[in-house]
């Protein structure tokens, strides 16, 4: 019962938060320029401009302007992107796919490495592997993502030449169809291994760069969780039953240590999201982050505001989902034992 109440409360607050965020975005866009600026493009005729001005325009009182804008958003009209010379909503999906692919790759790296390292360190508490891992974690949390990326580029691209920049080799990319927009998936669907390999090879450096900070956070959490669980009585009781250490670790300690780690994994999603901006700049990745960076440099309000809206909605949703999953998993906490 308690889960349900808690979740209902969270769901009820959600619309308030969304409205709040939209208000902030609207305020920002007004500070940044005229209310119609984001809808205008070079190609428009004076008549079209006048029509837009009337719909969203200055002669209306502020609340009406907000409602007009909000209405536009809900209808899918997010304005005109000066950077891409196209409506925002048209450009969005492709760039989203590219960023998603990168983020998922980074997440996979971060989660597998993080849980693995954290378990490794936690099981060897206060011994050398643990100390080394702790150094790694603190470094990861303090590391400027863009600097790390540049370092990796210098070593692996300039000097060693092992990995490329960008998302793909143009000819290979053009050789397959792109139904989902996800290069890896599309190449597998087309059965084209060369393309798949091309995709992976381009993903390596950016994914590692993006995932590094998150790996550090997850490692730290997993390690401390595991150490805590290993100190619990049931672990000792499991050993007393004659279970070999690997089973005690896997089935008992680690399983329970994963529960709090999952929240961290969910929360570090925000970290990943913010990292995509600079990672895409450095590695020339054609995703949302680089689009945003270009928009910032050229004052393209529409893109910037759309980006803020999108990421906030995503952020809120993910946080909610994480809370649901955590509430479901931790029966101890939820059912009040």
């Amino acid at each position, binding site marked *: 019962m308690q889960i349900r109440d808690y979740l209902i409360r969270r769901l009820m607050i959600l619309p308030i938060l969304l409205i709040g965020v939209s208000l902030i975005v609207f305020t920002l866009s007004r500070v940044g320029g005229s209310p119609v600026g984001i809808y205008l493009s070079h190609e428009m005729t004076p008549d079209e401009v006048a029509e837009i001005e009337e719909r969203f325009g200055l002669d209306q009182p502020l609340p009406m302007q907000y409602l007009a804008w909000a209405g536009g958003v809900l209808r899918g009209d997010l304005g005109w992107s000066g950077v891409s010379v196209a409506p925002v909503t048209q450009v969005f999906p492709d760039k989203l796919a590219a960023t998603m692919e990168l983020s998922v790759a980074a997440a996979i790296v971060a989660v597998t490495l993080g849980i693995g390292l954290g378990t490794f360190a936690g099981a060897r508490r206060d011994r050398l592997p643990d100390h080394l891992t702790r150094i790694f974690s603190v470094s990861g949390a303090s590391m400027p993502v863009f600097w790390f990326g540049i370092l990796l580029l210098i070593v692996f691209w300039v000097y060693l030449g092992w990995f490329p920049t960008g998302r793909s080799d143009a000819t290979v990319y053009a050789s397959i169809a792109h139904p989902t927009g996800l290069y890896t998936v599309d190449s597998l669907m087309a059965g084209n291994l060369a393309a798949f390999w091309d995709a992976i090879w381009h993903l390596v450096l950016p994914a590692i760069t993006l995932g590094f900070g998150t790996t550090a956070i997850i490692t730290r959490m997993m390690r401390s969780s595991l150490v805590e669980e290993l100190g619990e009585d*049931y672990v000792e*009781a499991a050993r*007393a039953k*004659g279970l070999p250490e690997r089973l005690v670790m896997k089935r008992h300690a680690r*399983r329970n240590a994963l529960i709090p780690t999952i929240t961290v994994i969910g929360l570090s999603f925000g970290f990943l999201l913010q990292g995509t901006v600079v990672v895409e700049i450095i590695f020339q990745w054609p995703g949302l982050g680089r689009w945003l960076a270009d928009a910032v440099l050229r004052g393209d309000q529409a893109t910037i505001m759309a980006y803020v809206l999108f990421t906030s909605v995503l952020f809120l949703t993910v946080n909610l989902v994480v809370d649901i999953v955590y509430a479901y998993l931790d*029966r101890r906490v939820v*059912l009040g*034992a």
Partner: protein
Amino acid sequence: MTSAPDVDPQPIPRSLVAAVKDLRVHFQAKAGLVHAVDGVSFEIRDGETLGLVGETGCGKSVTARSFIRLIPSPPGVYAGGEIDFWSTEARRAGQRPIDLLQIPQSEMLRIRGDRIAMIFQDPGKALNPALTIGRQVAEVFLQHRSGEILTALDPNPPALLRRAARQRSSTFERLLLKVPPWRGKMAKLTRRLDDLVAKALTETQIPNPRKIMDSYPHELSGGMKQRVLIAQALACNPDLLIADEPTTALDVTIQARILELISELQARLETSVLYISHDLSLVKEICDRVAVMYAGRIVETGTTEEIFSNPLHPYTRGLMAAVPSAAHKRGELAAIEGNVPELVEPPPSCRFSSRCPFAVEICRTTDPRAIPISEEHSVACFAYETGDPTELPVLEHWVS
């Protein structure tokens, strides 16, 4: 029972289950090496319940855990002595004992949960909150009886199944087992396991075992959880059950029933029990013999009757005096003055000397040794060094 060198060593020990000989367990702490257990010796006989009594911190839990080497290795260190163990089989075959402190880890894993089982103080914490009861109890069977269970079902089990039974499947194999025909075979194995688990649970008078098996620990009461743990411990019919304060965390009303249960099961299964407690009244009820421990050493051993009716060691006397009972005049609740001494690299001395009203010079400079007073009764105190057991000094009861 004796470790004093001037008494004839028993040529053949009477059917013993375990013999602790001069056990020493130390802990590396910031302040130095703590001598938590410092030369402990006692025996556990076939079919008996031996009580190990002492206040918190005296080393009884460490001693208990040493039987199955549960002490974590930094910071703990098994610094000396041996724990000899005879399984029922070994006894019947007249074999020599094994030293639990020396056997390889693989053998120790086979003994834990199978020949020697342990139940802990707080049943709520001794169960994994994320797994069902059935799953956890089944682990014991899987770990120790998998071979027999499997061959009973299928005289020639395939390797895949064999590994599954011994809990050794890789992730890939586990996925494979979800597919028929293996799925059916696993189901048969699981059903057999469930039967065994249910049977074990009924032994401890748990009502509705099938339902309990599907429950999670937090859904059960304290007393029920302890029954589950007892059932789990006795599942493989161990030769020795170590009970570390099994009723301390339970309601007084439940305590009595759990104690009854342990006694009854022990008698029926012919298990020997090492019962750790700080509660003398409980010990008096179910133990055949008692060993009193203080600051890492055994100070007195004897039958329950002897210890309670004729306590010899000043510490034991103090304990008896401190137990409120109808025998005392009202208002006469004695407390032993002073505190347990620091156990960091202590010099040779009687550990109780700083609190003992009868302490003399030798008590502070030499380690006492166990002196036999009667066949079962021995005490480690210089006051009894006269050599003639009929001439016992009379130490006054003290009442503060």
